[in-house]
């Protein structure tokens, strides 16, 4: 039993665990006390002085970010004294602020803008010239606009406490203090430095990659999972004009807390890749011609049925970038064809890159999001660390070959030439298409809905952020249609939710899971891996 305290904030009674601060207690009521220096993942210097609130009985306003909630406490966040304090502090912030919102990347998601619009003075009283610091390249992906800085020191504390790579500091003191790097050593090479751009409450630290690319209010935020390693960091896709503009971490205390690595953050362009497979096609070599989904799929179903009649075996090549639903549907189809081995190839990095301040967050060696899901569905990893080779059992195979999501970059020119059927489900045209009998365009994870299973065994949902090009369909739908045509039991799922329900019903590791259980933070499979730092 957790010890609790009950206090009153703005007339509302709230009960919180002992040791909770007033600011956090107010947040449970949906009352966000303005603040800059406070960040839930960092230490609390209580220096911005914006979160000061009136506590009855206290002689002075109290910094709500460090003052523990006490039983019977009566707190006013909206009293005249608290509001006057915030108005005053905001005026101090604006004294040297350049007010260059029209050209500032942070505009629209800027805490200074928000707070000043909410309760700042209509007119500043300063008649003094503004201090000018200009712009500094901090190295890596980070640019520093000193004039916009509110000196909350979140960035310095992140580098010291979380990255434990102290490359930033406050130089000078008083009004002359400024965030800086040490001499010529910048942030380049620090694997988690990109997070300081996220936690900067104003436009002082901005991303070079995102610089002047899009206005914050034009971006749609779609919850997703980082597809760049098997950690499964919760992210948001920031999308404009059907293009992913940037990735931002989304809070999940079980996986990535508030952070993500720069490796993952900067690998999103492939989701916007232009040369896509946009229409289904059938026929071999020169005879390959596009057709409707109906025609191509019924033709494929017929050929698969014939091959099965002829007693030919089936082998499949999957991809760890595919969702659990896609992989399970592939497994079901292979079973409907008489059963066979499914292999996959996955790129692996030389080493892991942990975040020292939250060691559960690691850029994993497996550079694909669903290696664990593939393994749980009985698929076997083949090939080398660079996702090449390992195709020996497939190259000369004369039965049914199913390839899903693997671009066959290193396959021999005659790959699948001897196979009775070679169906390729992919987002991009396979490099060696000569042997293919059917090409089926499918969606990327950014375009579809589904789940990944991360290294720990946590099943997490992602949502569609982009419109799929042309006639691309979810792979689970295509595969389930084929399985049904071959006489497999059950209805073809129409929704990702149904595909997930079927996966959970049919495959033991996922049994008992449902969208309700997953929620927005995911849930563990029945045999999770215990991670150090968990």
């Amino acid at each position: 039993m957790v010890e609790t305290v009950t206090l009153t904030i703005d007339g509302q009674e709230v009960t919180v665990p002992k040791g909770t601060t007033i600011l956090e207690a107010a947040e449970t009521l949906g009352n966000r006390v303005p603040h800059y220096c406070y960040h839930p993942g960092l230490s609390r210097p209580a220096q911005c002085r914006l979160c000061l609130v009136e506590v009855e009985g206290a002689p002075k306003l109290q910094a709500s970010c460090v003052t523990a909630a006490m039983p019977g406490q009566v707190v006013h966040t909206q009293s005249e004294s608290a509001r006057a304090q915030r108005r005053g502090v905001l005026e101090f912030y604006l004294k040297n602020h350049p007010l260059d919102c029209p050209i500032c990347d942070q505009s629209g998601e800027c805490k200074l803008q928000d707070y000043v619009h909410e309760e700042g003075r209509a007119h500043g009283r300063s008649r003094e010239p503004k201090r000018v610091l200009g712009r500094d390249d901090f190295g890596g992906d980070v640019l520093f606009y000193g004039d916009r800085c509110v000196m909350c020191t979140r960035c310095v504390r992140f580098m010291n406490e979380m990255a434990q790579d102290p490359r930033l500091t406050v130089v000078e003191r008083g009004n002359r203090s400024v965030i800086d790097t040490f001499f010529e050593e910048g942030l380049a090479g620090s694997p988690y430095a990109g997070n300081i751009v996220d936690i900067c409450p104003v436009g002082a630290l901005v991303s070079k990659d995102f610089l002047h690319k899009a206005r914050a209010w034009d971006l749609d935020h779609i919850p997703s999972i980082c597809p760049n390693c098997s950690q499964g960091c919760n992210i948001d896709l920031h999308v404009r004009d059907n293009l992913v503009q940037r990735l931002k971490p989304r809070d999940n205390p079980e996986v990535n807390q508030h952070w993500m690595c720069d490796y993952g953050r900067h690998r999103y362009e492939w989701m916007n890749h232009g040369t896509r497979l946009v229409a289904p096609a059938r026929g071999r070599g020169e005879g390959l011609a596009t057709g409707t989904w109906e025609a191509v799929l019924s033709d494929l179903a017929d050929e698969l049925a014939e091959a099965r009649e002829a007693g030919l075996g089936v082998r499949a090549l999957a991809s760890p970038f595919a969702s659990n639903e896609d992989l399970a549907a592939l497994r079901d189809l292979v079973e409907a064809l008489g059963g066979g081995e499914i292999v996959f190839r996955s790129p692996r990095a030389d080493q892991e890159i942990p975040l020292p301040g939250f060691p559960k967050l690691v850029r994993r060696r497996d550079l694909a999001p669903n290696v664990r899901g593939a393994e749980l569905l009985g698929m076997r990893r083949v090939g080398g660390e660079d996702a090449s080779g390992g195709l020996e059992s497939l190259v000369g195979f004369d039965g049914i070959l199913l390839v899903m999501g693997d671009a066959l970059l290193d396959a021999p020119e005659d790959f699948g030439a001897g196979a009775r059927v070679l169906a390729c489900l992919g987002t991009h045209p396979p490099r060696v298409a000569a042997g293919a009998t059917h090409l089926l365009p499918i969606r990327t994870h950014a375009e579809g809905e589904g789940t990944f299973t991360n290294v720990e065994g946590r099943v997490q949902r992602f949502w569609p952020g982009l419109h799929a090009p042309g006639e691309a369909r979810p792979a689970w739908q295509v595969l389930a249609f084929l399985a049904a045509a071959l006489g497999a039991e059950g209805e073809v799922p129409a929704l990702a939710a149904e595909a997930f329900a079927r996966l959970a019903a049919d495959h033991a590791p996922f049994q008992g899971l449902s969208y309700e259980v997953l929620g927005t933070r995911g849930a563990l499979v029945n045999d999770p891996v215990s991670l150090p730092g968990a």
Partner: protein
Amino acid sequence: MAFPYEHEREVRILSRGWGDPRTRTLEGWKALGGYQALEKALRMPRGEVIDEVKASGLRGRGGAGFPTGVKWSFMPKEKTGPQYLCCNADESEPGTFKDRELLRWTPHQLIEGCLIAAHAIQADHVFIYCRGEFFEAVQVLARAVEEAYEAGLIGKDILGTGIDIELTVHSGAGAYICGEETALMNSLEGRRGLPRIKPPFPAAVGAFGRPTTINNVETLCAVPHIVQHGGAWYREQGTEKSSGTKLFCVSGHVVRPGNYELPLGFPLKDLIYDVCGGFRPGRSLKAVIPGGSSVPILNAAECEDCTLDYEGVVEAGSMLGCASVIIMDDTTDIVKQVRRMVDFYAHESCGQCTPCREGTQWMARILRRIEEGRGTEEDMDTLLDLGDQMTGTTICVLSDSAAAPVASSIAKFRDDYLALIRRGERVGAA
């Protein structure tokens, strides 16, 4: 021999060796009866030492005036690990120069006080944090510490009592804020000199994360005398609530500025006209800052009946602070003096808290503009409003200190401001 001036109304307890280089040596200090109090204190139960200091009514001489014995009793009852005593010798308040003299002339007095205090609070290690600019004083003190170590007065098994106390002299780098007790601890630990949030208070979590007591040089220097002669003896000087003697650092427009050790409760007018010899011919009193630059200014009328004890100065409308009496005659340009003080605070603000970081510099800019004859009457309202914003809203009291002289000078010398704003005329020629 006294230093630099003496007066017969002085009661010289702490300053009795000043001016005589022999008191800097162990031999000279012992000749004055030094280290007898240490001998006595180390053989007393430590509770009795604290009780004696409580009985003396000694209050912290660094400025806040908190009862020293009470402060000592905040240390943990049960010792669970290392505990520390810090001696704050980072004397940087504009107008203050008493600790420097104590360090230069009577270093052994301080060492003795530190050792007694360390015994009383069960500290294993004493750190004397000296202001960075105290080059000579640190040399003298370091020499004395060496002598005391050699004589077995510091270190293991002091005077055969089985008590171990180490002592380190640490030189700061010259930042005013490092005189704030928690910033001092950060600085001592090798961090940026930024004040810490309280709670936790130093008696619970202080230097190096351990229980720590921090006392001013003058406070610790008074301790041997109290132990030697008893709390009741110390109470013979001063007033009921402000007992004992105090070093007054007098600067400004008087004939004989300097350090004077006087009983608390001494009349301010007597200090100015009798002890310090009054003003130069033809000049008269305009204002007094009675406790270092961070306390409100008193005008001539308020000085009339002011007595120099903690309560008396508060009654007059200011604070005793560290008793640095800055006396200004009628040639003083108050706006300029206030601007200079605020410039100091703007320069010395650590820059953590927004109201202080931005407010001190903003105030300094406005005052500079007024001084140059480009001010407006609204500027005075802005200054007062900024002062309100900067008072009681920050981690430490530096911003309060910057705001106090501004607010009090506008309240009491409004005409000086208006003369500059309306006619560009400076009041006073200085």
